[in-house]
Each structure stands twice: as structure tokens, then as C-alpha cells.
């Protein structure tokens, strides 16, 4: 399996604070890689650096052999990197369907003139957007709620929709920031099933997750951050037995016992 994403020596300072320090790791095509670590370890900052929401102080990011360091979020998205946010982010005043349709924009080509004169290209783009939205609507299981406003649907459906918005952009790599945050045990299971389904479509997944049971079950590999530095990586088993990881999570002294 080749690498789809390579992070080299990524560093980001906020004033005097080092949020991420000299971080390097690879994401292999087709895998689910989890990024874990205690609160404030810099996980979301890593997402922001990869997608271009933040510029790195130092370091490089490569995606499918292209350097994407410093590209803006809309550019990394058209390259094929999509993300979700920790706090569910939606176009709340639009319907579920409209949320999905507008998120397909980066794959359409029509401009102002096409809109004004209803050109063939505009009709083709509209049709394609609609088709793509319907396809993803089915995948995330929200067909019954297609015409409801995003703000009126239950929290779990909103989380699914947020994932759907990322999927509509036709990503090759999907960055999920705590997709199960605030969900119940039962909902966790169906969300994980959905993520597995996404993966079978050939989409590589980089996951931030706090619930260890989920992380250990779903991940192919895990990268552990603490205070912005990588302290371990490897398979769930390797990471689970790593003394530095246990120390970071439970404090010094637990590792020996």
C-alpha cells in the first residue's frame, strides 16, 4: 500500500506556544489511521494544518506526491481532502438536500454566464449535483429528512449530514474530527458502521477520536500525540502496550504495573 498523505516535520507555534512540534507520519491508501492523544495534544491543529485552515510554521505536507503545504482549504478540498469539524458544522438554514447540493460545487464548472443564460453546462451541472446529493443522501441514510431544515433534524442525523457534506466533495482522503462526539453507545455503533461503509468505497480515513473502544476496533494504525509531539505509532496492539502512551493517558507510575 502506498502513502496517500505524508506529513514531514510539521510544526506550528501560536506565539510562544508550540501546538505541534516536528510531527511526521504517513497515511497509507485505504487504511483508517487514528490520531489520538489527551485534550490539547494538538490533534485538531494537525487537521487545520493539513487542510490549509492554518499555515505551518515549519514542515511540509504531501498528498499523492504533490506538495500541498500552504494551500487554502478550498484548494485542498478540490485536490481530494475533505474534513468534518469537531463541533458539527452545517448550513443550518438550508434543507438537508440543499446542504449536500452546494457542497458538490467544487466538482462543477458553471459560472455566472451559465447561470444567466441557462446554458447546457449549467443544466448538466445542476443535474449532476442533484444526482450526487441523492447518492450520498442514501449512503448516510437521511432520505426521509431530505427536505427538512438542517437545524430541525436530530443531533445524530446532523453528524451524519456533516459527514455527508465531506463525502459529496468526492474526497480520496477524509479527515474526521470526533464523528461520535456526544452520541450514545447505540449511535456510536451505527456511526462506525457508516465509516466502515465509507472506507469500502475506497476512501482513506484519518480519524480523531477519544473513545478508546472505538479507536481500538476500527483503526488499522494509530498515531499518538502528547503536547504536540508524536510519542508513539503503530497497530492498536503496539500502541496499547506502549509505556509512553499509558503514561501520557494515566500519568507516570502506571506503566510498570
Amino acid at each position: 500500500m502506498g502513502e496517500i498523505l505524508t506529513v514531514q516535520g510539521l510544526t506550528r507555534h501560536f506565539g510562544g506556544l508550540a501546538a505541534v512540534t516536528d510531527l511526521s507520519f504517513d497515511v497509507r491508501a485505504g487504511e483508517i489511521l487514528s490520531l489520538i492523544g489527551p485534550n490539547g495534544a494538538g490533534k485538531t491543529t494537525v487537521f487545520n494544518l493539513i487542510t490549509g485552515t492554518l499555515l505551518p510554521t515549519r514542515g511540509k505536507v504531501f498528498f499523492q506526491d504533490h506538495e500541498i503545504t500552504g494551500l487554502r482549504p478550498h484548494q485542498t478540498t478540490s485536490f481530494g481532502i475533505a474534513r468534518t469539524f469537531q463541533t458539527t458544522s452545517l448550513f443550518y438554514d438550508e434543507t438537508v438536500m440543499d446542504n449536500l447540493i452546494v457542497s458538490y460545487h467544487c466538482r462543477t464548472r458553471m459560472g455566472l454566464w451559465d447561470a444567466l443564460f441557462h446554458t447546457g453546462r449549467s443544466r448538466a451541472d445542476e443535474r449532476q449535483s442533484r444526482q450526487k446529493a441523492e447518492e450520498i443522501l442514501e449512503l448516510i441514510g437521511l432520505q426521509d429528512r431530505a427536505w427538512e431544515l438542517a437545524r430541525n433534524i436530530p443531533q445524530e442525523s446532523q453528524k451524519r449530514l456533516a459527514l455527508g457534506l465531506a463525502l459529496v466533495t468526492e474526497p480520496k482522503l477524509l479527515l474526521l474530527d470526533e464523528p461520535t462526539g456526544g452520541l450514545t453507545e447505540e449511535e456510536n455503533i451505527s456511526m462506525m458502521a457508516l465509516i466502515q461503509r465509507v472506507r469500502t468505497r475506497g476512501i482513506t480515513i484519518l480519524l480523531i477520536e477519544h473513545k478508546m473502544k472505538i479507536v481500538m476496533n476500527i483503526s488499522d494504525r494509530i498515531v499518538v500525540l502528547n503536547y504536540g509531539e508524536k510519542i508513539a505509532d503503530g497497530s492498536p496492539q503496539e500502541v496499547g502496550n506502549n509505556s509512553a502512551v499509558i503514561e501520557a493517558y494515566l500519568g507516570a507510575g502506571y506503566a510498570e504495573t
Partner: protein
Amino acid sequence: MNWMGRKWLILTILVIAVIIPQVVTNKYYMNILIMSGIWSIVALSLNLILGYTGQVNLAHGAFFGIGAYASALLMLKLNMSFWFALPLAAAIAGFFGFLIGLPALRTRGSYFAIGTLCFNIIVTLIVDRWEGVTEGARGLMGIPGPGPIPLPWGSEITFKTMAAQYYLVLCFLILTIFVLRRIIQSLVGRTFRAIRGNEELAEAVGIHAMRTKILSFTVSCFFAGVGGVLYASYIGFLSPEITDYHVSFDALIYVMIGGVGTIVGPIIGTLLIVTIPETLHIAAEFRLLLYGLILIVMIIYLPRGIVGWVKDLKGKRRQEVAWEKS
């Protein structure tokens, strides 16, 4: 309302709009109608950037003024005909929108509002002081109206009567509605709304926020310019006050009262605010006081304006019906 019902309603309004000058011959009322038409174009264009893209632009008066002054200067100093000056002056207003948008649209929320307000004040100052070109406070006089359009069989359409002026404004109002509606209902319009809804998310799903905002702003300023040209040639006189930020606030009030982010809202708001005080003969000072009061009440109780309120009522009724059925 179903699709057929809506179609008939639009047709009825259109027929009424066309018949009006045949029934109303009073010049005073015709003047109010023509002004309402011009201001409707300005309010509609403001709504594109304000209502649909979520950027509070307080410089619309400046772009209206730029369109008006540009057309007046083109016609007076370069002897250009109205029909060439109109698109050119509107394009100049749009181009200024583009230039100002480049720095101003990098800021968000209230910073954009303050930035555009400052730009408006600067424009008024320049128009006021640059006497060599704009004649300053004396104003530009004798701006010609639109020249006659020749028809193939020897006759021609002239714009000397009030009714003809009214039809001219009506045509441009319909054109503005048509173009803005096309944009708003397209995929391009959806990206505008995405920026209004959540700019960070819009970027994350691959929408170029800056380009989208600039596009919306440029189109918005272009149509503000169209309104300015129509005003200049109808009134025939321009002074720096017409570029003033008061004009921006008037347009803002029309949009807010009619309904932000709706197509008919700005027109209804303009008709109400332009016609009611005029017909009730309320003194100008009281009018401003009244505007302020209405605006406060609207923002607190009907933040989506009259049209938004009616839509909410309908939505609620539909929900209640659905509830009873289930």
C-alpha cells in the same frame, strides 16, 4: 402557493404595473411610482450581497452615486448617448465594487460594514471637492434623458412623457429581477447562501469564499449603478448628497422592512417606505424618526422582514396541517 397560482399572481401584478400609467395621470403619483421603481432596483441589488451573501454593505449609496455621476459625466462631457452610457456607467460602478471588495471583503461581519461605510464617506467627499470634474456642491445640471429608439417602419419610441419614463424604469426593474433571480436560483447563488450560512464550512467543502463574495459584490454594485443611471437621467440633476451614506441606509431600510434574502421583499419594502410617507405628507424630520422606530421594531420582532414573516406564517400553517393529518 402552488406553481400555477404563483404564475397567475405574477401575471396579474405585471398587468396592473403596465396599466397603471393609463389610469393614473397625476404627475405627482407617477413621480412616486418612478422613484419607487428606481429605488427598488437599488434595494434588490443590495439584497444580493446583504441578504443572500450575508455581507452588510453600507456603501450602496456610493455605488449608486458612482453609477449616476459616471453616466452624467459620460453624457455631458463626452456627449455619449444614454444607451451607451447606461451599461458603461453600471460597469464602472461594478468595477469600483470589485476594487473595493478586494480589500474590504477580507474582513468579516461588522468590520466589513464599517469599512464600506468609510468608503462611502470618502466617495461623497471626493465628489464634493473634485470641482473640476463633478462641479462639486453646485452639482451637475441638464443631464439628458434617454434618446429615442428608432423603430424599423420610420416611427420611434421617445421618453418625453412621464408614462414613457415609467415604462423605461419598469423594464429595467423587470430585467434586474430576472437576472438576480437567475443567479440566486443557480448553483452560483447557492454558493452565495453557503457563505452567508457558514464561511468556514463553505471553504472546507471547496468553495472559494473570496471569489464568491467578490462576484456577488460586483454584480450587486453593477445594479446599484443601473439604478444610479436611471435616477440621473430621470431627475436631470445630481449633487454630492446623492452619493451620501443616507442613501445606503435608505436602501438598507427598504431591504430590512421588505424581507432580507427574498426576491419580492426589497420591492415591497421600497413601495411601502417611498409611497406611504409621501402620500401621508409626513415632514422629513419625522420621517427619519419614524424610520428609526420602524427599523428597531422590525429587527426585534420581524428580523426577516414582511415577506419573511409571511413565509414563516405559511410554514407554520403547513406544519399544523401536517400535524393534524398525522
